[in-house]
């Protein structure tokens, strides 16, 4: 033991309290070294966006815009770039994926955060996270060889209608709730015209989306012909399985971060577990949960291998909005263009179209992030 009883009485000089020069240099190096590592990733992202924009710009300025809308399909090697042909399947796949992953992932998260005891949690959470580690090529294979014939191929006409009705109903209930608060805003927003316009626009969007969904489901139902081979539905379910762990894991983290004192307060007032989960924990964790969905949507819309293998189309495709047919998503279109021995050979702009689609994907996920963060800042109950 050191002797601590020494009495210090001498005056000190600044030199004695100074940092050693060598140590000071090391601190500076550490600081700027760490800054450099942070900057590298920013730089790489910037370069990617730059190259994307540059090549996409060539496409945007060079393409015959009449060939990008209302054509029969996406035939890049022939100079036909019908954008809806690749955007609509992407939306369908993403939509189906979220219909699969949303309820399952959120349900799993609520169970893990609110119901599971320590023992169950200890094996269930890692098990869910293992699902996230399955290579997407394996899932693509599974979607093509199992989901397509055994799940999608066996969906009956009635089953589809019931499924569609349930989903639409769920959407209607949620949007009715949102519309009610918007109507309240409209009434209160008499002094602020922008609030009125915003409220009307939001309600209109909700109604239009509902009408489009209804029309789409009825249309698919009328021309119902499930496909045993690859289809957008099979790919969507596969992508959904892939995103379940994302939704579950991030949502669960957000819910677990809500302090137990709030759960105790709620239980102490006579609330049951489900009530506590929906009225206290979910609103408090909403930013994390929305983030989970955004990450999942970004992942789903950007997922390539599963849709490439199980989507039922390669290289080129005719326009389709039927989930039971094969279709080409944006990512699959890019992958087909960039793969094969004759990669990106074709008409002048084929190569650039690849970048254009990439830019489109990037803009979609970016705007999704912006919309979501605005939504979160409005509804979040920060604790």
């Amino acid at each position: 033991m050191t002797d601590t009883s020494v009495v210090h009485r001498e005056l000190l000089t600044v030199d004695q309290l100074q940092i050693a020069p060598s140590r000071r240099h090391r601190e500076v190096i550490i600081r700027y070294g760490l800054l450099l590592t942070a900057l590298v990733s920013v730089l790489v992202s910037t370069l990617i966006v730059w190259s994307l924009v540059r090549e996409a710009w060539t496409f945007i300025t060079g393409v015959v815009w009449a060939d990008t809308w209302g054509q029969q399909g996406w035939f890049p090697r022939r100079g036909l770039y019908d954008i809806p042909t690749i955007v609509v399947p992407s939306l369908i796949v993403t939509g189906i994926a979220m219909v699969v992953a949303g309820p399952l992932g959120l349900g799993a998260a609520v169970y893990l955060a609110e119901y599971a005891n320590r023992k169950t949690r200890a094996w269930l959470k890692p098990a869910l996270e293992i699902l996230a580690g399955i290579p997407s090529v394996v899932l693509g294979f599974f979607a093509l060889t199992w989901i397509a014939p055994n799940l999608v191929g066996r969906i009956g006409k009635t089953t589809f209608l019931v499924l569609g009705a349930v989903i639409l109903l769920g959407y209607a209930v949620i949007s009715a709730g949102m519309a009610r608060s918007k109507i309240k805003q409209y009434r209160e927003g008499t002094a602020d015209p922008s609030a009125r316009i915003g409220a009307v626009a939001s309600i209109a969007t909700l109604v239009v989306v509902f009408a489009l969904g209804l029309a789409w489901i009825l249309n698919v139902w009328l021309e119902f012909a499930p496909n045993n081979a690859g289809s957008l539905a099979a790919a969507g379910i596969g992508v959904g399985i892939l995103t379940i762990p994302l939704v579950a894991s991030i949502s669960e983290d957000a819910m677990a971060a809500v302090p137990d004192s709030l759960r105790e307060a709620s239980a102490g007032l006579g609330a049951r577990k489900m009530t506590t989960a929906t009225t206290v924990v979910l609103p408090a964790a909403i930013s994390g949960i929305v983030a989970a969905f955004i990450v999942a949507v970004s992942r789903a819309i950007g997922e390539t291998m599963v849709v490439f293998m199980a989507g039922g189309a390669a290289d080129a495709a005719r326009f389709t909005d039927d989930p039971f047919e094969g279709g080409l998503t944006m990512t699959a279109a890019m992958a087909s263009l960039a793969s094969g021995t004759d990669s990106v050979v074709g008409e002048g702009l084929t190569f650039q179209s690849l970048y254009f689609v990439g830019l489109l994907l990037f803009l979609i996920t970016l705007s999704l992030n912006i919309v979501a963060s605005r939504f979160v800042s409005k509804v979040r109950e920060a604790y």
Partner: protein
Amino acid sequence: MSMTEEAPRVFERPVTAGEPSAAPGIPPLATERDIVFSSEEVNVYYGSFRAVRDVSFDVRRNEIMALIGPSGCGKSTVLRCYNRMNDLIKDARVTGTITYRGTNLYDERVDPVEVRRRIGMVFQKPNPFPKSIYDNVAYGPRVAGQKKGLDDIVENSLRKAALWEEVNDRLTDSALGLSGGQQQRLCIARAIAVGPDVLLMDEPCSALDPIATARIEDLMQEIKQDYTIMIVTHNMQQAARVSDTTAFFTADIGSENDTRTGILVEVDATQKIFSNPSDERTENYVTGRFG
């Protein structure tokens, strides 16, 4: 508020379960009907560890019962048995019986949710929901399925909690914008709004400054005519000021494995506990010789 102003019923000896005190000073009608809680041989285990051993005592209607004792003596754990709050702690197990108005709370048919609607709780740290002041108070009634008359309930509860004057012009503001003392009174209003019979308070003033503490103590005196209150407190002056009856707990330190098990030392009129306790350990504690 000194204890002499409001002389509590005086007990000759500790009140234990199944032995209604017949001591002078207690009205002869103080029978089972006046006993809200009666605990018998209550033990609480966390896994295999016994946190509380063989606690038995009664709580009377419209009295303020203080649970005091050094840290780790299990007083909060005991309090949380009274509204089945320990059910929320995984691995926690309660044995023995706690009778609430003639029914064992730990009967297997009893639904803890129903218990908690009758026996409210205020926690150590103010824990308002991150919602508006109004929604905080209306939470309990809403959860119970009430849709009409919420405005009145909110106003009455806030008035009872002596908070109405301070917040009536900003009911839609977030509760988190209130000061600590206001938040704690909001939590009391929130608990009152459910229309409980008993309020359990787990060190409700430990996170508050002396002024806010005094307000909560005054409030307890005002509302005790409507409720039975059990309060856990670290602050002996507080117990002496507010309570009618005091239960003193201490930790029994296991000889071989150094575990601390809470035991009840004695229960008596607050005045007696602080002036002339029967047990030496109580005397040592209230005179500041340990704890």
